[in-house]
Structures are given as structure tokens and as C-alpha cells.
């Protein structure tokens, strides 16, 4: 709660500081606020302080603190890496960063809600600023097209979600997750209304995380919106949505997992295949990343389904670790996109990066290897954790997932070869300008990706 209030106030102050038209000041205040929020979160979880003891709508338990923690860190890294494009127009320098911070407030609510009121508000506070941010480049028709597509699919998903919540309320008579859980457990036969509601809520979630068959919007939106915002959608929004899935489906609707479990499993397999097979023939970097993110959602959903064979903290931890690895790798690639800063976003522009700037090339290759799941990078351990849990219940599905990792390695390696290759013709851009903030982001994410696997040994 302290973190939430700190971040909200930071967002407000950032908006007002922007009147001074000093982007640097805005950046410094936003950074202080974000790090303050991080400390607030740790302070609160460490000493078990509740700001409003009578209010039970938000509960920052261990899972919520874990997921909120990486949401805040990723937002900070994204604000740093996208500082230049975000504050390009100094009249709007504060707006973009403030909207990102407000969206982060929604993400924190999504990780910690205990009733449907807060869940719905959190989802909307998370989504609405991102609709606006996707259309950040006002004169760019592609950016506003991406914004409209994201808005229409997002608000349609909201409508479906609300319809689902209404059915759940109708059959259980409560919005509180604990009461709903007890109502489902105590009734001898649950009405089909409840199942309809749960499936509608599930469908809207699959929309939000961009899983097959509701993935059609994500390549377009990712390709059209600015790189930094694409990174925000791929990391923070997905992490918050997965935290909410864990809390809703595996914690609340666990007794009726026979209804939604097989569906999620099917969606997981479909997402892997569609994501990986479509990524092979992409010629633009961000579209490739969008399809690869669909595949990664598939792997993470596999961890959600295997919840009943393990104890609560284990699968929470598996999903968390996997998304952390995915988010760090995405942030490195987004930083590279920001550095190259090419409108056409053609994959050929990545040819020979490693020859122009070997250290940047090294970071990019580390990120791609992590996405592909090659040891010793963090992505490998994330996949290992998920597959080693799932193999007891679904050995065939794990075989399919491994096959998909193989397909994934094909196009990831193709990208690595492009980064390393000598350019055939004279390159369009001579020098890569990397500012110090972007170096910091690259180093933090790169080091975490490298040592993340070894941190696992400590637990």
C-alpha cells in the first residue's frame, strides 16, 4: 500500500514538474519516486505494516510483493532506456513518464487484489494509460493505428470480463475471492452459470496476455507502438496479468480446475506452435518479438496448469522466474531498438551490430540466447523449472514444448547470425549513439540474465 501511494504521488508530481519544461528534472523525480516505491514495498513486507488495517481489498502477500517488485524494476529500466524518445517533445516530457507510472499503479493493484472490485479497477488503471501511450507518436499514422487496435481489442475484452464477473456474482453472491472460493467448495453442484462466468473471465485474460486464439492484435500493436511502450506491454502488462491469473484461477477457482485446466493447456500448446512457426518468416524485429512473446506466453501458461501437483509457492515461483527472465531479455532488445532507432524496423538493420559496437552486440546475443533457452542464461533455467514440473502430469505436452523450443532456436540463431555478420553493403547508419542511462540498463539486465541461473542454487 505504501508503494502504491508513493508511486501514485510520484506520477502526479511528475505531471506538474513537466511545466518547468526540464526533461532531466522529470526523469530524476520519476527515478527517485520509483526507487522510493521499491523501498516502500520492501519496508511494508518486511515489517508487516498495513496502512489501512480495516481495508481488505488489497493484500500485499509474498506473491504480490514478488510480482510488484519486478513490475517496478522493469518500469524503472524502461523509463531509463526510453528516456530520450519519451521526452523528445519537451512540452509532453512529463506526460509519457507519468502515464507509465500510473499504469504501474494498476499493475500493483493487479498483483494484490482480493476482490473483483479492485481487480477490475486495477485492470483498467493498467490498460487505459497504455492505450494512450501506444499512440504516443501523434503525427505517425502507424502509431495511432496501433493505439486504436489495442484500444478496441482491450475494451472488448473488458466487456467480456465484466460479463463473466456478473455471472460469477450471480451464482455465488459475492465479489470477495475468499467467499467465492468457499461458495464453490460448499455447494454440492455448481450451476453452469458459474462455469460460463469463469470461462468468460479466462477468455478476457487470454486476450490481455495475447495467447492464441486471441493473439491477432499483438503483432500489429507491438509493431506500431513506440519501442519503449512495446517493452512495457511485453513485460509489465504481461507480468501483472499473469499475477492476476495465478490469484484468480489457481488460488480461487482451483476446485473447478477440471473446467478451465484443459482449455488453458490447449491454449498453451497452440500459442507455442503459432508463435514459433509465425516468427520464422518475419522480416521486422518487433513483429518477430511479438510472435516470440506469444510462444513465451504458451510456456508460461504451461506452468499455470501444473499447479495442482505442487505446493502453492513452487508454481508461483516458476511463473515468476520465467517472466523475469523473459522481461530482462526483452528490455535488452528494446534498448537495442531504441539505440538503432530505425523507423522501418527492418531486420536487415541489425546486420553487423556486433562489428560496430562489440559490447552492445554481446548484450544482444545474451538476450537472444536467453529467449532461446540456452544455458547458462536465465531463460534456460526458467524453461527447465517449468518443464521439470510439468513432466509428471503432461509428459507429451512437455515433449511438444521441447520441440517448440527447437523451432525457436532456429529463428533466434538466425537473428544472432545477422547481428554477427559483416554487412554486404555500406551500412545506413555509421555510429551507434548509446547514452549512459542505456548502458546502465544494459549492464543491469545483462548481469542479472547471466547470474540469474546461479541465484537459483541459493534457494
Amino acid at each position, binding site marked *: 500500500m505504501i508503494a502504491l501511494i508513493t508511486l501514485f504521488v510520484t506520477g502526479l508530481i511528475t505531471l506538474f514538474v513537466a511545466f518547468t519544461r526540464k526533461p532531466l528534472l522529470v526523469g530524476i523525480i520519476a527515478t527517485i519516486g520509483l526507487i522510493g516505491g521499491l523501498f516502500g514495498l520492501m519496508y511494508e513486507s518486511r515489517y508487516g505494516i498495513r496502512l489501512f488495517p480495516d481495508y481488505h481489498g488489497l493484500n500485499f502477500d509474498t506473491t504480490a510483493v514478488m510480482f510488484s517488485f519486478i513490475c517496478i524494476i522493469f518500469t524503472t529500466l524502461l523509463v531509463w532506456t526510453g528516456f530520450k524518445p519519451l521526452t523528445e517533445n519537451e512540452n509532453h516530457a512529463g506526460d509519457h513518464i507519468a502515464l507509465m507510472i500510473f499504469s504501474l499503479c494498476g499493475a500493483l493493484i493487479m498483483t494484490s487484489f482480493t476482490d473483483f472490485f479492485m481487480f477490475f479497477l486495477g485492470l483498467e488503471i493498467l490498460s487505459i494509460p497504455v492505450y*494512450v501511450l501506444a499512440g504516443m507518436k501523434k503525427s505517425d499514422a*502507424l502509431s495511432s493505428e*496501433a493505439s486504436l487496435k489495442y484500444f*478496441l481489442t482491450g475494451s472488448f475484452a473488458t466487456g467480456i470480463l465484466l*460479463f463473466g464477473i*456478473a455471472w460469477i*456474482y450471480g451464482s455465488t*453472491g459475492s465479489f470477495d475471492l475468499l467467499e467465492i472460493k468457499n461458495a464453490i467448495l460448499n455447494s454440492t453442484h455448481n*450451476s453452469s452459470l458459474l462455469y460460463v462466468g469463469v470461462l468468460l473471465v479466462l477468455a478476457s485474460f487470454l486476450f490481455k496476455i495475447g495467447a492464441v486464439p486471441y493473439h491477432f492484435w499483438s503483432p500489429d500493436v507491438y509493431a506500431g507502438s513506440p519501442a519503449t511502450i512495446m517493452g512495457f506491454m511485453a513485460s509489465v502488462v504481461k507480468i501483472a496479468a499473469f499475477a492476476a491469473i495465478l490469484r484468480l484461477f489457481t488460488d480461487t477457482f482451483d476446485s473447478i480446475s477440471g473446467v478451465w485446466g484443459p482449455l488453458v493447456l490447449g491454449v498453451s500448446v497452440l500459442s507455442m506452435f503459432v508463435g514459433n512457426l509465425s516468427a520464422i518468416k518475419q522480416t521486422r524485429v518487433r513483429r518477430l518479438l511479438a510472435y516470440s512473446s506469444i510462444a513465451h506466453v504458451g510456456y508460461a501458461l504451461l506452468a499455470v496448469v501444473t499447479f495442482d501437483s505442487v505446493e502453492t509457492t513452487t508454481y508461483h515461483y516458476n511463473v515468476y522466474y520465467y517472466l523475469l527472465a523473459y522481461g530482462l531479455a526483452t528490455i535488452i532488445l528494446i534498448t537495442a531498438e531504441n539505440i538503432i532507432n530505425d523507423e522501418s524496423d527492418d531486420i536487415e538493420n541489425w546486420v553487423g551490430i556486433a562489428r560496430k559496437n562489440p559490447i552492445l552486440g554481446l548484450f544482444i546475443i545474451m538476450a537472444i540466447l536467453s529467449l532461446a533457452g540456452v544455458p547458462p542464461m536465465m531463460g534456460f533455467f526458467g524453461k527447465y523449472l517449468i518443464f521439470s514440473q510439468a513432466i509428471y502430469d503432461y509428459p507429451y505436452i512437455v515433449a511438444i514444448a521441447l520441440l517448440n523450443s527447437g523451432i525457436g532456436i532456429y529463428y533466434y540463431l538466425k537473428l544472432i547470425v545477422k547481428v554477427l555478420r559483416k554487412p554486404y553493403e555500406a551500412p545506413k547508419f555509421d555510429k551507434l549513439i548509446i547514452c549512459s542511462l542505456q548502458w546502465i540498463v544494459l549492464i543491469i539486465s545483462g548481469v542479472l540474465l547471466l547470474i540469474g541461473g546461479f541465484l537459483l542454487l541459493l534457494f
Partner: protein
Amino acid sequence: MEGTLLNSGVSLQFYIILATIIFCIGVLGVMIRRNAIIILMCVELMLNAVNLLMVAFSNYHGKGDGQIFVFFIMVVAAAEATVGLSILVLLYRNRKTVDIGLFNKLKD
């Protein structure tokens, strides 16, 4: 699910049927219509169907929280409509159309 709602002679199932019909009209509108403004209105229709359902269930259970949820939905719907219309204005300035069939530049 039977029984008559408080202070009205209409039973719950009619509310459920009406809300479902309105919701389905909204969903069909989003899927079929090409004009972005009408799609926006259809989304609002979906949300209002949910409002009706919430109030009916709230009355059926004899609890007030469903009706409070309706206020949350109304506030969020207003915020969404604001953002949606401003995105549409932005897009109209850039492309001079609101036909979603023509917004296909990202596809290639």
C-alpha cells in the same frame, strides 16, 4: 434461479435473458460493423448489459455490492470512452477516415 425480484413483478430469468440479448447485440456489432465510432458504441452497449445484469443479481441476492459495482463500471466506461474518442480524433487527423477496414498499414 427462480423467484421474483424485490418490488417488481418480473422474475430474474427475464432480466438475464434481456441482458444476454443486449450483450450479444453488442458483441455482434463489434464484430460486424466497420465504423470505429459504432464499434465504440457497441462496446458501451456490452457494458450496459452487464450493468443491468449486476443490478438484477444484486436485487436477487438482497445485497448492495452489485449496485456499487455498477458505479465502478460507469466510471470506467466514461474513462474508456474519453480515451477511445480522442484516439479516434487523432487517427482521423492522420488518415481522414474512421473505417477500420482501411487501418491495415501495419499488416504488411
